[in-house]
């Protein structure tokens, strides 16, 4: 314990070197904007800025990139809330309730909620990181394919209630998402599949962001245009204001959300440390669970502040968590840490179990920088909220084309392929029509995120077990998770049956 504190203290000495402090503040600010730009996101931001870091020593470089990663996690929420376009895949869950809040003229409340929840999530996770890295690294190590699939089932289960009342429409939406997630390359058989009409663009699959920006960004725009045309007119711009009094009131209200925020923090951190999962499933699961534990679940999707806090706490916690397998196992916990890993190779550092011993200054400097980055990002973010609110006051006729262009850039940036831009526009139109027909869209988004993680995990497990599904129940970690998932999955059904038995329906005739 004291040894850890001593090492952490040394880390802080590294952080408080003026150059490193400057790198943290610069990185956080840059990250905030990278995260807020749809499609840019932390992955691309870090990849683009990687070559810049050859100018400073490795510790400074990782601190800078980690600060960008961190800032981007906050920044992703900004465009989710303000424009309804998820700035990054990790911020999709934030649009579910952040956007409705902004439409109701409470963008400031949502932004403050996101900032504070991110801070809490970040703080809890970095403390966990500091004190429990080795045992958690062990958990990440023994987590095999069956455990991964059980976790994915749990994620699906938390989302059962999300689709609204029409269970068939929800299932339809999930199926669309799963089919889209299967497009591209099948890792198990090694063959391309569902390469629709032999268009080569489908070889890299359907990018999750293309779907998310399509149905939320473009779809939302079409929706708003229609409201405008019909004379409603108040949607994109609402009487958004910001003042000290409102900020304080918003902060007071946040006390109510502590349960959702703390739950999101722990969940996000845990999901984050698992290799290959990353912050996106973590934030989606946190949203689902926040709804399940809420006293007013019907408010979710209509502008519940918990629906903003839980995923925001989770994605920040996960971003810290995903550094753990990167540093200790050399396995990226998220796409962004994969790039950071590439950076470490360039700097001549070998990630893996020896890193904590051989390069303790590097590791503890990074950990200490996360504490600092967390604080700076909160301050920078709150300072910028009035600026963001100003943007909302832009007339719709100006804002709409800007958003449209941002969507196009967002669709193009990740793969740099025009194919994805066309696909995104198609998804936008289809998403708009589905929404008109009252099909829930969130389950489709969830399915396209979790599908590519769940499917190989299930098939790998079944290859290992020679086709027996018992493998998901027999193992130490997989068993309890799978049982929890099944309970969660069937709970609504049992509830309905129970209610029916308790108070029989009045006879219709």
């Amino acid at each position, binding site marked *: 314990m004291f040894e850890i504190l001593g090492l952490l203290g040394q880390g802080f000495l590294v952080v408080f070197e003026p150059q490193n402090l400057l790198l943290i503040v610069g990185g956080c600010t840059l990250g905030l904007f990278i995260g807020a730009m749809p499609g840019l996101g932390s992955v691309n931001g870090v990849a683009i800025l*990687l070559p810049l870091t050859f100018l400073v020593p490795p510790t400074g470089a990782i601190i800078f990139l980690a600060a960008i990663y961190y800032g981007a996690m906050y920044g992703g929420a900004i465009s989710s809330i303000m424009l309804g376009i998820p700035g990054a895949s990790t911020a999709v869950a934030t649009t579910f309730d952040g956007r409705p809040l902004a439409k109701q003229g409470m963008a400031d409340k949502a932004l403050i909620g996101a900032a504070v929840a991110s801070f809490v999530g970040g703080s809890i996770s970095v403390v966990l990181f500091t004190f429990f890295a080795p045992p958690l690294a062990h958990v990440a190590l023994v987590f095999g394919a069956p455990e991964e699939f059980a976790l994915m089932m749990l994620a699906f289960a938390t989302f059962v209630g999300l689709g609204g009342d029409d269970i068939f429409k929800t299932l339809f939406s999930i199926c669309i998402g799963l089919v889209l997630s299967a497009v591209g390359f099948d*890792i198990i058989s*090694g063959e391309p599949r569902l390469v629709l009409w032999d268009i080569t663009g489908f070889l890299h699959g359907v990018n999750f962001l293309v779907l998310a920006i399509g149905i939320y960004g473009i779809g939302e725009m079409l929706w708003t245009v229609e409201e405008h045309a019909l004379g409603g007119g108040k949607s994109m711009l609402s009487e958004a204001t910001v003042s000290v009094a409102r900020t304080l009131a918003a902060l007071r209200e946040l006390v109510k959300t502590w349960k959702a925020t703390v739950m999101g923090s722990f969940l996000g951190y845990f999901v984050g440390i698992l*290799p290959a999962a990353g912050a996106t499933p973590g934030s989606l699961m946190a949203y689902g669970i926040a709804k399940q534990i809420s006293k007013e679940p019907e408010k979710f999707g209509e502008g519940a502040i918990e629906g903003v806090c839980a995923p925001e706490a989770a994605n920040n916690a996960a971003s810290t968590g995903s550094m753990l397998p990167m540093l200790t196992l*050399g396995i990226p916990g998220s796409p962004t840490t994969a790039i950071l890993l*590439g950076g470490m190779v360039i700097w001549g550092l070998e*990630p893996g179990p020896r890193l904590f011993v051989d390069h303790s200054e590097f590791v503890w400097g990074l950990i200490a920088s996360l504490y600092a980055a967390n604080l700076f990002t909160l301050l920078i973010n709150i300072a910028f909220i009035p600026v963001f609110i100003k943007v909302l006051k832009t007339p719709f006729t100006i804002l709409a084309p800007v958003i449209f262009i941002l969507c196009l850039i967002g669709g193009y940036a990740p*793969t740099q392929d025009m194919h994805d831009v066309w696909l995104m526009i198609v998804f936008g139109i289809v998403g708009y029509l589905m929404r008109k027909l009252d099909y829930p869209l969130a389950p489709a988004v969830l399915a396209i995120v979790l599908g590519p993680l769940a499917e190989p995990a299930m098939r790998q497990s079944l290859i*290992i077990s020679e086709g027996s599904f018992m493998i998901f129940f027999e193992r130490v970690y997989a068993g309890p998770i799978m049982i929890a998932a099944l309970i969660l999955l069937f709970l609504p059904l049992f509830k309905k049956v129970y209610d029916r038995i308790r108070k029989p329906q009045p006879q219709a005739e």
Partner: protein
Amino acid sequence: MYQSQHTLRKVVCALGVSAILAGMPILGHAWEPQKPVEFVVMAGKGGGADKAVRLLQSIIASENMAPVPFTPVNKPGGSGAEALVHLNGKKGDNHTIMFTLNSFYTTPLRQPGLGVDITTFTPIARMAEDTFLLWVHSDRKDINDVADFVRAARNKGSKWIMAGTGKNSEDNLLTDFLNTAYDLNMKYVPYKGGGKVAKELAGKNADSTVNNPSEQLGFYEAGTTKALAAFTDDRLPLFPKAPTFKEMGYDMVYYMQRTVVGAPGMSDEAAAYYNDLFTKVFNSPKWQEYRTKKSLQGDLLTGDALMSYWKRERDVHEVMLKKMGAIK
């Protein structure tokens, strides 16, 4: 005639439209790229190939070797199919190059429908060949050499799990090799990426792997995993105790190329430029250090020598894929 053309060129330059002519070779001047070079990676972000490309990019940038930046673009789709089709469509382009692996041979062989003929691509430079070793967990005190390994694997039959990177991949080829040579029945489970495979072994979710050294290095240095034998011609300096299968009498030598390839129909001047550039990169201390650290083999190959290497390797892979039943 030449004189008048020269004067004309001067005039045009003065008019400030030199950019139009810039792509043409000017007598006496070597070709140089005029705009950022697209450096396609045949794999996803964070994988072994991606890390190598980012290192190459950093060497070119930090040593000021080129007047323009090299921008990595990842095209991981379809086991390299997406990248191959992309490059194939850039005929005559002098500003697109790609970093490639052995899926360069296997993907076009397995998917003739792509219309990719690798012999039309421009050979630039083979920067290294990666090696493969047979790995088990260090806790397996009963396994210290290949004979122990064979005994243990045979006892467990199809319950012995070999983790690898995807079906019909290099790892799969080597697993098939071992199964046939030693009369084993190991079960091959495909995972996404070599890092994940290494982790499955360290976490004991797999019994053995045939990882590249770079993928297992972290666990190996921490004493979590150990190498039993190498699929190389000679013993590797980093793993002197691991014998080669060749010295044990089995014809199992297999390497993974790490090569830079240009678009088909690239101009000779541009090809010569990239040849020179990557020769310089190859000889830079940073790349040499990386090669030593990651136990990379294979000399620099450029131009025609590289092309004949490709043709030979493609034929070898065709035979292997036929044996596996992956192609007819």
